[in-house]
């Protein structure tokens, strides 16, 4: 490189920069940070590999029938509790914005009560309902002994589903409120009835806002079902515990359970992305990525 080029002397040379070589900015901080994190990760992996973990137990029990049965029960409970949660959520959200003061206040009270008390505590209350109501039913019509009805499955389903409904109602409500008032008016002017407007115009648009948080809640519910182990429901964590009470391989079986939770959550995340893309049709940001 000649000296004439490094320090331009004439005005023409000063503006003549097209032939110069471009040196990219260096990201030293970025490189250092990545190095530190990788080092820590390596240390963690080493710790697990030299730790007192009998990996053979993990692989032996990964597909054990008891574990797989627990996995199925976890999935069934997730679906059942979320179904109750979503139905309650939609009903309570509509009650809340219905303009009927009694319905609206009941919706607010429901939210306050079931969002306020811990989920574990609610499960235990449902499971122990027989202590205060020995029988359930309508006098003269039918009656059951509470202990017969309130099995671990039913108690967990009600406990998880009803507290979930409180959270989901807020998601549904924010979804309904996100739809522009002009959409309601346009639907009315083409002669739609209230129900048709909700179904064809409002809900499809509200779904776009509701799917990501509801997806989160489904994933949260997969993990929340582990609370049902406390009331003896045979979901995956409970079954892993049953095994390690017998063979004392506590951590190995907890890793088996972790593995299955991660598998289920990964699959659900992919499904969630698909659904988001479907309800995002017609909106600019999503289309750019398709």
């Amino acid at each position: 490189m000649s000296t004439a080029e490094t320090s331009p002397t004439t005005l023409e040379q000063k503006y003549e920069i097209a032939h110069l070589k471009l040196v990219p900015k260096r990201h030293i901080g970025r490189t250092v940070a990545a190095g530190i994190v990788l080092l820590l990760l390596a240390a963690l992996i080493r710790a697990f590999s030299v730790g007192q973990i009998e990996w053979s137990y993990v692989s032996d029990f990964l597909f054990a029938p008891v574990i797989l049965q627990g996995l199925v029960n976890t999935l069934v409970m997730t679906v059942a509790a979320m179904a109750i949660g979503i139905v309650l959520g939609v009903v309570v959200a509509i009650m809340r914005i219905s303009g009927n003061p009694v319905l609206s206040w009941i919706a607010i009270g429901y939210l306050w009560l079931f969002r306020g008390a811990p989920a574990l505590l609610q499960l235990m209350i449902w499971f122990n309902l027989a202590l205060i109501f020995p029988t359930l039913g309508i006098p003269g019509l039918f009656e059951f002994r509470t202990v017969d009805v309130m099995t671990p499955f039913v108690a967990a389903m009600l406990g998880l589903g009803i507290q979930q409904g409180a959270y989901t109602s807020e998601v549904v409500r924010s979804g309904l409120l996100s739809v522009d008032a002009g959409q309601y008016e346009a639907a009315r002017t083409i002669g739609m009835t209230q129900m048709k407007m909700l179904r064809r115009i409002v809900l499809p648009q509200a779904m776009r806002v509701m799917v990501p948080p509801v997806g989160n809640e489904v994933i949260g519910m997969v993990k929340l079902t582990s609370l049902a182990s406390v009331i003896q429901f045979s979901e995956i964590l409970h079954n892993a515990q049953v095994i390690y009470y017998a063979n004392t391989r506590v951590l190995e079986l907890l890793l088996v359970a972790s593995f299955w939770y991660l598998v289920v959550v990964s699959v659900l995340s992919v499904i969630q992305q698909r659904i988001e893309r479907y309800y995002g049709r017609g909106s600019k940001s999503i289309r750019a990525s398709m």
Partner: protein
Amino acid sequence: MTKDILVKAIDVTKSFEAFKALDKVGMEVKRGEVACIIGPSGSGKSTFLRCINLLERMDEGAIWVNDELMGYRRDGNNLHELSDKEISRQRRRIGMVFQRFNLFPHLTAVENVMEGPIQVLGHPAAKAREEALALLARVGLGDKANHYPSELSGGQQQRVAIARAMGMQPDLILFDEPTSALDPELVSEVLDVMKDLAASGMTMIVVTHELGFARNVANTVTFMEAGKVVETGPASEVLTAPKSARTAEFIRAVHA
């Protein structure tokens, strides 16, 4: 052109809390006519338009469209409030085009036009699509049928909205400042579609600031201010030789 009365409003009054938006507004629109409503913002023009198709509830007064009393059913000496379903039935015959288009963003242009005919009128999908495509072609958007509203310009969206209103084969179309939200260079494409629609004999009530459109297309012009009708008459008279000083002042101000 038959000259029977399609829209008749008597003493329409509406308050928003302390604010009197409409004060005994009356109006008459004959079948096949274009009626423009002009006036400063806040004068009640849009509110009046929204009372016609029951988007707003009026406090007093009455409106008939096609000899049907809007919102009520007369039974001897009683007026029964109509149910949600009956109101929907009345609204089918009245199209509306909004300032902010209000197309359904999750549906394509052609689906926006088909939605009412299929869901409300119960037309078969194939027939509805064919008619919707014909309407889109009529408003010059035959090639945009499968585009979503977010992919269309404001002028194109408004033309789809007009096609959507026409798709219901209404007796009457209400236009609520249809060009006010548009970039200036897109105004004429929407006005051209409206002119074409007027020429085809559609009855239209248009709230607008486009006095040129009113002069060229409207049969009658009504000037409103502070919730009252100040002056109404044939377009040529109201716009060129207004009787009220206030009307003249407004027209001068818009042209300035």
